[in-house]
Structures are given as C-alpha cells and as structure tokens.
C-alpha cells in the first residue's frame, strides 16, 4: 500500500470530467450488508458516530442490486458461500470485493475446520484484503483508500476476471457446494471455455 493511496480527490473537478465513471465508483461505494462472519461486529462502529464511513460515501445498502462493494466480513462457512456467490452474481458491474479479516485469506484461525472454506479467492475474485483478527475500523478506511487507488489505476478488475474465468470459478464452486440451483451467469463464456478445453485436451 503506497502513501499516495490515502489522497482524496473528490473535489477535483477536472478529474470528474475526465473519468466520471471511475470517480463516481470511488466516492460512492455502497457496501452490501451481509454479516458473513464475526467481522461484522466492526462494521457498525465504522458506519456510525465514531468513524462515520458515510463521509467517504460508504454506506450499507439492502440488496445486491444496489451495491457495488462487497465486504466479506470474516470466515466463510460452506453454507454461507452459496449465499455469497448468489449475492455477488446479482451485483451490477463494476463491483469490488474486499476480504475483511484473516479468515477469508487462508482460513485464519479455522485453518483446520471442516466447515469453513479456506481461500475465498478460489470461488469469487477478491480485489483487496484486510488482514487481522479482528481488523480495526481504521483498517476498513485503509482498504477503501487502497481500493480508490486501484480503481484509479484500473486495477480493481475482479469482476472482469470473474467474467473471463467464469467456468473455472463455477467448477470450483460446484466442487464444494454440489450442483448450484441457478443457471450459469455467463453461459456463453462457459461454452467457450469448454470448447477451448476440448481443443486442448
């Protein structure tokens, strides 16, 4: 994380005209409210009086359709993974995922638990991680500023990766969860992938 990442250019009118999309995404990060794990305990302080994330345009929203930031707060059990994938796929693009806490990175404390998945980025793309158990609310801000930098540089492209490698992700998901109830999100890409594999195989 560079020092520059903390810089806020919300009032830079020129930039607004140059790339309104990126600027809009940066300063209006609507986080999907989903208590996936114990990390959620630090989200209320982050959005209320003490830290007030709304200063930076970060607010929790009710449904995935309205959100563009997915905070995976804490460990992900197998049962939750299904709901996470469903919610992630319903979010409109561009969308960003941030893994909050050590557990989604590599299982953390629950590295030998039979019911939590260990690496979240095997199942959905993750744009940034916040390490710690539990990370402090300030860490959320650091992650947000870091995400700004990534958006600025065009590097927060997890959703494109998901689109491109959808078949692989889907296969990983189905390995853990069994057959998924919903049809593939990008059926065309998956067919392409399959045909490519056939050629290679």
């Amino acid at each position: 994380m560079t020092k520059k990442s903390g810089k806020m250019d919300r009032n830079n009118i020129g930039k607004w005209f140059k790339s309104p999309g990126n600027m809009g995404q940066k300063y209006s990060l609507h986080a999907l409210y989903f208590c996936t794990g114990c990390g959620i305990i630090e989200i209320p302080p982050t959005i209320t009086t003490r830290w007030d994330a709304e200063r930076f345009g970060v607010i929790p929203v009710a449904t995935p359709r309205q959100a563009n930031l997915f905070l995976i707060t804490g460990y992900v059990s197998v049962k939750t993974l299904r709901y996470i994938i469903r919610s992630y796929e319903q979010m409109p693009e561009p969308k960003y995922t941030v893994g909050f806490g050590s557990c989604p990175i590599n299982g953390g404390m629950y590295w030998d638990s039979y019911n939590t998945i260990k690496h979240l980025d095997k199942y959905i793309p993750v744009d940034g991680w916040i390490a710690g158990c539990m990370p402090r609310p300030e860490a959320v801000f650091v992650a947000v500023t870091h995400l700004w930098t990534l958006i600025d540089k065009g590097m927060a492209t997890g959703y494109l990766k998901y689109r491109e490698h959808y078949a692989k992700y889907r296969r990983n998901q189905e390995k853990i969860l069994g057959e998924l109830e919903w049809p593939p999100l990008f059926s065309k890409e998956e067919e392409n992938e399959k045909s490519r594999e056939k050629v290679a195989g």
Partner: protein
Amino acid sequence: MKLEILLAVFFGGSLLTYLLGKISKRARDILAVLVLLFATAGITSLYGKSSTATLYTGFLDFPMVLSIHPFAWIFALTIAVVGLCAVIFSWLYIRKKGRTDFFYFMMLLVIFSMIGIVLSGDFLSFYIFWEMMSWSTFLLISYNRGKAIAAGMKYIVMSVAGSLAMLVGMISLYTQTGTLVFEGISGSLNSASSGYLQFILILFFVAFGIKNAIWPLHVWLPPAHSEAPSPFSAVLSGVLIKIGTFGFILLIYGIIQVQVFVNLGHALFNVRNLLLLLGAVTILIPTFIALFQDDAKRLLAWSTVAQAGYIILGIAYGTSESLSGGTLHFFNHALFKSLLFMVVGAVEFRTNGVRDLNSLGGLIKKMPVTFVAGLIGVCGLIGVPLTNGFVSKWLIYHTLIVNHSPFLAFVALLGTWGTILYSYKLIHHIFLGQLPRKYEKLQAAPVSMKVPMIFLSLTVFVFGVLPGLPLHVINLSELGFGMEPLAINMWGVVTGSGSIQMLNIATALILGGIVLWLFFRMGPKNTRADQMDNYAAGAPVPADRYQYSVKFYDPLTRMIAPYLKDIADNFYSALARGIRNAGNGIRRIYTGDVGNYALYIILFLAILIFIQLYWKVW
C-alpha cells in the same frame, strides 16, 4: 335512414343469425358481426338528427313512437360499438362451449333491445324493449348453468320488481296526463304537484336504480357479472346497466325539467338530495368492498357499482357541467369497463377459466398486448391524465367544488383513491409478479380478442386526449334539454374558475417521456434478468412461492373489515330470515334469498301505492 327500417333489420338480423347457425357456424359468426357493423354504421349516419316517427298506432290506441336526438344517439352508438366489440370477442371465447347459436341470438337481442330502448319515444315501446332486454339478459347471465342460475334468478327477480315499479309509474302517469308519449307527458306535467312528481320519481328510481345498481338495490350485480360469460359481462357492465342511467336522464332532464327537479321538495328532504346521498354511498361502499375481492370479475363488478355512483352524482346534481360529466363518464365507463372485462375474459380464456386473482401472476411475459390493454383500461378507471376517465371525473369534481358541495366532492375524490388500490391489485395479481410454472407455456390472446381490445384501448386514449369530441355531442343534447352548454374546445373545457387543457398536459407528458427515455437510453445497456434471478436474501428464489398476492392490503382490510359488511345484502337477508321464521308459507312460495328481495321491493311499492291512494301524502 329510417328508424323503423333500422329496427327491422336489427331484429330480423338477430333471428337470421340464429337460423344460420344451424347451417354454418362460421357464416353465423360473420353475419352477427355484419349486422352489428350495419347497426353501427346506421346509427352513425343519424348523427346530429332529431326526428320522431310513429311506428304503429293500433296497439290499444297507444301510439308507439320512435325518436332520435343527440342524447339518444350517443347512447345508441356506444351500445352498438361495445356490442360489436363484444361479439367479435366472443368468436373464440364461446366456441368451446355449447349452445352457441342461442348465445349469439341472445347477445344480439340484448344489444338491439337496448338500442330500441334509447330510440323509443314513448313509454309503451320503452317498456316492451325494457322487458325484452331484461329477459334476454337473464338467459345470458344463467348461460353457464350452475351458480350462474342462482345469479340469474337474483337478477330477474329484482328486475321484475323494477319493471313492476315502472309499470305502476307508467299507469299513474297515464291517468295523470292521458298519454304515454314522452313529449306529451312532459308538456302536461308542468302543472303537476311537487308531491306527485316525487312519487313518480321514486317509482322510476326503483326501476332504474335496480338496473343501474344504485347502492341498496345493487345486490344482483356482483354475482351476475362474475357468473356471466365474459363478453356479455363487458356488455352488461359497459352499457346494459347504464340503460338505467339513460332512464334517469330521460326522466329528469327530458320529462320533468331539470329546474323543476332541482327545486323539488323541502330544503333538505327531497329526491335530489336522496339521489345525491345514494350516489355518494354508491361510490364509497362498493369501492371499499372491491378491495376485498379475490375474483377478478367480481372486483370489476363492484367497481362498476362504484362508477355508477359517479354517474348518478353527475346526473342528480343538475348543473350543465355535472350532466356533461355524468354523461361523459357513462360513455367513458362503457369503453374502459368493457375493455377490462375483455382483458379478464382473455386471461380466463387462456388459463381455462381461472379468475382467482391469487392463483395468477406474471402473465405480462406471456400476454403483453392484453396487459397493455388492461393497463390502459385501469388508467381510464382511475382517471390518470391522458385517459378518458380523467376528464369526466374532473368535470364532476369541478362542478361539485365550485357549487359549494365539498363533502360530495370529497367522497368522489376518495372513491378515486380507493379505485387506485383495487385497480393496482387487479393489474398486479394477474400480470405482474412471478409467473407460475404451470403458465410457462401460455399463449398470447388470439387475434379476434386482441382486435376489440386494441380498438377499445385506442378509444380510451383518444377520448382522453381529445375530450372535445364526445363533449361536443353532449353539448348538443344539453341544448336539446334546454340547458346552457359548456364552453368547450377540442382539447378540453374552459370555465371561469379553472379550466382543463389536455393539449398542454398531453404535450408535456409525451415530450417529457420522450426526453427522459432518451436520457435513459444514454446510460449503459441493461442486461435482462430472469424472474428466478431475483433478490431473496441471498437464497435461490423458490419457484411458484415468491408472489405477494394473498390478502394484498391485509393491514388496511383487517382494519376496515369490521365496519364494512354488505349492509344492503345483510339487510335483505335479515329481513328474509325474520319473515321466514314468522311464516312457513312464504318460505314455500319464495325459495332462497332471491325471492325475498323481490318480496320486499314489492311490499315497499305496495305500501307506497297504499299511502298515495288513501292519504294522498304527496
């Protein structure tokens, strides 16, 4: 064209249709439409004419007179057009069922007897056509058998009671004036006493009120509408019950002059106030009852009762603006309500007779044209600007407000807001929401159903933007009644205290819509999502179980339900129960609820006559 020839063609055509049906079904279908096309054309050609023709004089020395004037013309044309649409609509609708020849015959008979009523120039022919209409209606309502027979019985018994009241009124008028021709009666009633006029008005009020389903006399209507075949429901609701309206206008404005009518009786207790009060109640209570209905056609039936209240309010208020509003609302209501019944009929046709709102949903994906027609119909019913219901309701509200009757205006406006609630319920439950799996292979409505629906939707829209067209004819008829016509133009009405210009509203709405649509297009392209790709708190959407339709307005209905029972129905039933307990004899003669309604209406009339004969109160 001569009126006699017109009528002869009508009834001859009906009979011919019936006979032709024995030979070829297709030819019969086409002939029915041709006859109605001829009727429409013939009536259209009579535009602006006022003429009277004596058809026959020999019948007990009573002349039978036919007459045409702008006021009758607009009614006749509406009847013919709605009838035409309904008959085209029934082509496929009725094919699956039996006794189709009979259906067409009765359908044409009803339509032409209604035209006969509005064209008749004396009470005798009025009465004859009236009875023809009543009986053929009865046969059509009970066409489906089963529950429909009970509904038909309820109708015919009440209808007979109404006819009786009318007969008494006619005889009384004849003894008073010595003639049955409208013009003659009108001329000699000038000297009649106020009490006598009120007596006559109440008698005819019973007759017309039953047909028009005014509040305590409405009980036949909801079952009849929901049980009748849908194309006939369209006719029934659109025009047939408005024959009562015709009767009211004829009586109040044509026979007893409006100035006389407004000044009848005492300050507060007079027929006009009674009518206004009943009109208001008719708006309010059925609107609330409609909220509770789960049967699409029954909901529309209650809505019809409520809308009749607006018409009564307009007619009984007695200003030229209110009469314009009332008449225009009749015309508009005929268009959008028959459209709505056709929409429900099309859905019923495709889903094999499902009318239960709670088991439908999401049909917009399968029947888009039907949905658009339904939406336009509902907008007309609510009175959304750019549809015709808006102008007529505006006229009624405006006259009530300007003439210092805010409470009536309040009831009328509140009724509209109730209308929104049940209209949205209708549209939402049938067309929006999740499509059940069993309807995934549903087909769109057939062309023969789409054509009348599209035509009626267009008229709803066109007369909403150009209210001047019907208002012009209404102005002509008001001139005929000797009233001062409204200041109108093609786009609306101008009055001293506020005016309405559809041109501005339409331009603003359409242009605004286009600009915003372009603005909307500027954004990134949408991706289409299936109905199963939906927010369900992260869970997969449960098929068939993700539709909020049962008890849609539950909190509200739970609140008002205790105060809102069908008082009229309960009143009749309670009285019937009392009488039944008193004597078993009556029970043997009058079986079921139906008989009781008739009994009490007849008793009421008898008491009225008795009082009049012995004490001469009026």
